[in-house]
């Protein structure tokens, strides 16, 4: 069985400062891991995916995530937050045709 845990339900950052969204996973085998973003009243959009080709994954809009097997983590970061980054972010694990979603982290960006 697979589970995905997002450690923070809310994160507040100032515009121009770094963003860190934390995600831990548990899986009995190598997972596929994704980060999705959901803007208000919109569907989910794929930010990036861990493919096992590289532990540091670069995504859209300046986001990147690092897969650390020893820590079972897949944290999402961005060096400088923009107002348009205000949204909800989901860490997602994939196995056997199914996705397992974390509970989500809502990001607030202050001017």
């Amino acid at each position, binding site marked *: 069985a697979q589970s995905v845990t997002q450690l923070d*339900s809310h994160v507040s950052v100032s515009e121009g400062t770094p963003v860190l969204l934390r995600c831990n996973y548990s899986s009995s085998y190598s997972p*596929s891991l*994704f980060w*999705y973003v959901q803007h208000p*009243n*919109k*569907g*989910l*959009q*794929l930010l990036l*995916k861990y*493919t096992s080709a590289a532990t540091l994954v670069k995504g859209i809009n300046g986001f990147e995530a690092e897969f650390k097997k020893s820590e079972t983590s897949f944290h999402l970061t961005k060096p400088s937050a923009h107002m348009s980054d205000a949204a909800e972010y*989901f860490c997602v694990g*994939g196995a*056997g*045709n*199914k*996705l397992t*979603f*974390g*509970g*989500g982290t809502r990001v607030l960006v202050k001017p």
Partner: protein
Amino acid sequence: NAGVTQTPKFRILKIGQSMTLQCTQDMNHNYMYWYRQDPGMGLKLIYYSVGAGITDKGEVPNGYNVSRSTTEDFPLRLELAAPSQTSVYFCASSYSWDREDGYTFGSGTRLTVV
């Protein structure tokens, strides 16, 4: 290229009523999924399909039914609506579950049962 289209966007149902949430994709994806999103709970898989004529239950299938008569369409049926089914419903599709482009999601249907 419309992607995944869901209708309606909003709906209010009375307890015991039935309705069908429509989902259509034009990307020739084999895999289609229905999720519900409750506040603070992430998304839960209701049903999924790996191709026309093949469907299977997800984590929370009770109270719902699906069919997949064509590659493009994957409707979700609520037979006897209950307040516990108040949620936002997302349809998604993918070529396979493991591709780098991930899943494509529709914009959601917000359902309220009163």
